[in-house]
């Protein structure tokens, strides 16, 4: 069965790229507060890091499972 971390990681990587990218081009601050915080860029970066970590561990587990399968066949 597919390692679930892989699709979750790719999903958050994609959403992180969309959100951070939008933060770069639009520079929307948080409405209705005085502090200037580009929340789309910041939170997009958080999602990117989370997505990258999940993708990495998912990909590693998939590779391990594939090599174990190959070895058991051999």
């Amino acid at each position, binding site marked *: *069965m*597919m390692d*679930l971390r892989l*699709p*979750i990681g790719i*999903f*958050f990587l*994609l*959403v992180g790229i*969309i*959100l951070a990218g*939008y*933060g770069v081009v*639009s520079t*929307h*601050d*948080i*409405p*209705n*507060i005085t*502090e200037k*915080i580009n*929340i*789309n860029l910041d*939170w*997009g970066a*958080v*999602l990117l890091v*989370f997505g990258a970590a999940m993708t990495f561990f998912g990909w590693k587990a998939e590779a391990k499972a594939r090599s174990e399968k190959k070895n058991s066949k051999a």
Partner: protein
Amino acid sequence: MTHVLSSARLATAIPHLAGTLAGGPVLKAHPIDYLIMGVYFVFVIAIGVITGRGHQTSEDFFLSGRRIPAWITGLAFISANLGALEVMGMSQQGYEYGMMTANYYWIGAIPAMVFMGIAMMPFFYGSKVRSVPEFLKKRYNEGARFINAITFTIFTPAISGISMYALAVVMQDFLGWHFGPSVWVSAAVVLVYTFLGGLTASIYNEVLQFFLIVLGIAPLSIIALIANHGWSHFKKWIATHQLPFLTPDQLTAAASQPAKAAHQLAAGQWLHTFHNTLTQSNPMHITWPGIVLGLGFVLSFSYWCTNFLVVQRALAAKDMNDAQRTPLLAAFPKMIFPFIVILPGVLALPLLPHLFPGNTMVDGHLIPATQSFNNVMPLMLAKYYPAGLLGLGLTALMASFMSGMAGNVTAFNTVVTYDLYAVFIRPQAPDRHYLWVGRILTVVGVVISVAFAYVVRGQSGIMGYTQTIFGVVNAPLIAVFLLGMFASFTTPAGGLWGLLVGTGTSVTLWIFRSHPGLPLWHHYNNNTTGAFWGAIWAFCAGAGATIIVSLFTKKKTDKEMVGLVYQLTPKPEQDHQLPWWKKPVVLGVLALILTLLINLWFW
């Protein structure tokens, strides 16, 4: 069920939101927001397609072939319970009652989840039952299975329809979306992935939805803290302000009728879980025995330890250790959830000060309500989420609805197939036949949910009643399960009568509570207190009936009860080689210690 109970008032309130938003929708979704929603829809359907490949047996479809690791079943265990009403309802109650609402988690969920993992899961998983009603059949008799299965079958799609209706109304009011397309599109997406991938697709998507809910709603707490200029500044505000202290009648009617609070309470009360629970001078008007015994024991244990919606996730685990760790691993994120879903409501008190019903007194001034606290979550999103992040927040709300609905539908199709169809309509059919029946029932479950969403739209009063009755019917279940698992003298007739008397008592007390004119030895002054105490009495009645009838009827042989009753089940050998994070007792104790510390922090 604790959440079903807690959200019942919000559900009743939803129809009254319509028309309250003068000037049209307050949220305006940007194309970037729709792009994020689109990506989400593509992923959940893709997960359905991928996980649906290679389903050979009915157990693959209904129980994921019992091969899912604990971290996944654990997150799905929480997520299946996280419907849209829970996410929006918890922030609403955070505003209305403050951190007392966290009792639904720290008292009303975690101890039960720990008990489930350590004490009850060995019997559910070890007996290889495919559903909770099937356990009742094995331990007691066919009658007990039938009662449990039929109530579950009736209420599960109805609850899912209510959640669908509530989300569609919020989307309609806040975004200007049409009711019909909102309902049909979200239902179609859930149908596609549950039809193709069964429980595996549901569980896999529940984990994705769990992360999405956390990462989509968590920024709201962070932004609300920034808007309040930090926690210490917020605490100063809390320490110097007064908030409306609604009377119990006003609390009951608050959702629908304007009320004027005659009294005020120090706002500091909103930061505590147990302050002034010796008396009822707290925002919930409730005393500690109701919280600890009613919510923390009867209601919570009945829901988390016997409701097939959550138990099914643990049954999908790959072995006994993972099944036991399912609720235990779930307990850790569960204890943090109040900071994500309740805290934004509490932090909204200074930011959106006009959400108490009617014209209320705030700091001695009469303030006209401009909105209802039922809307606090979407109002906070509207106020503080810019385009982009708003798409993430709205997708999180949709994910919460979908995870709840998929959970209901997959539990519904399993119970109807195994406990009704395969027993009363077509026993002994080939396994492939049940696989297809399950798929057809998935469609039926979704169609009933959609139909119920429309019924509720036409007759909104049904919503609150359905949720409350479901809560009331399930309240005393734990009595019969505990006696079944830990007392070998209880008999099939005892279990059946325990269920009938417990549920009967619970329903009767609810009818009396709902009609103040009827004679009852004690009338509780608000619904929450009444529900907590009603559950306690129903538990006593159910347990009493089980014990008394068991004394006079024939019990099953010891051989028949092996694997089902503690005293008659061989104890599995302890694997001392396991690392600490795989030992259920260690995880359970750790979860309880952390919960105790959090409780003390917010005492």
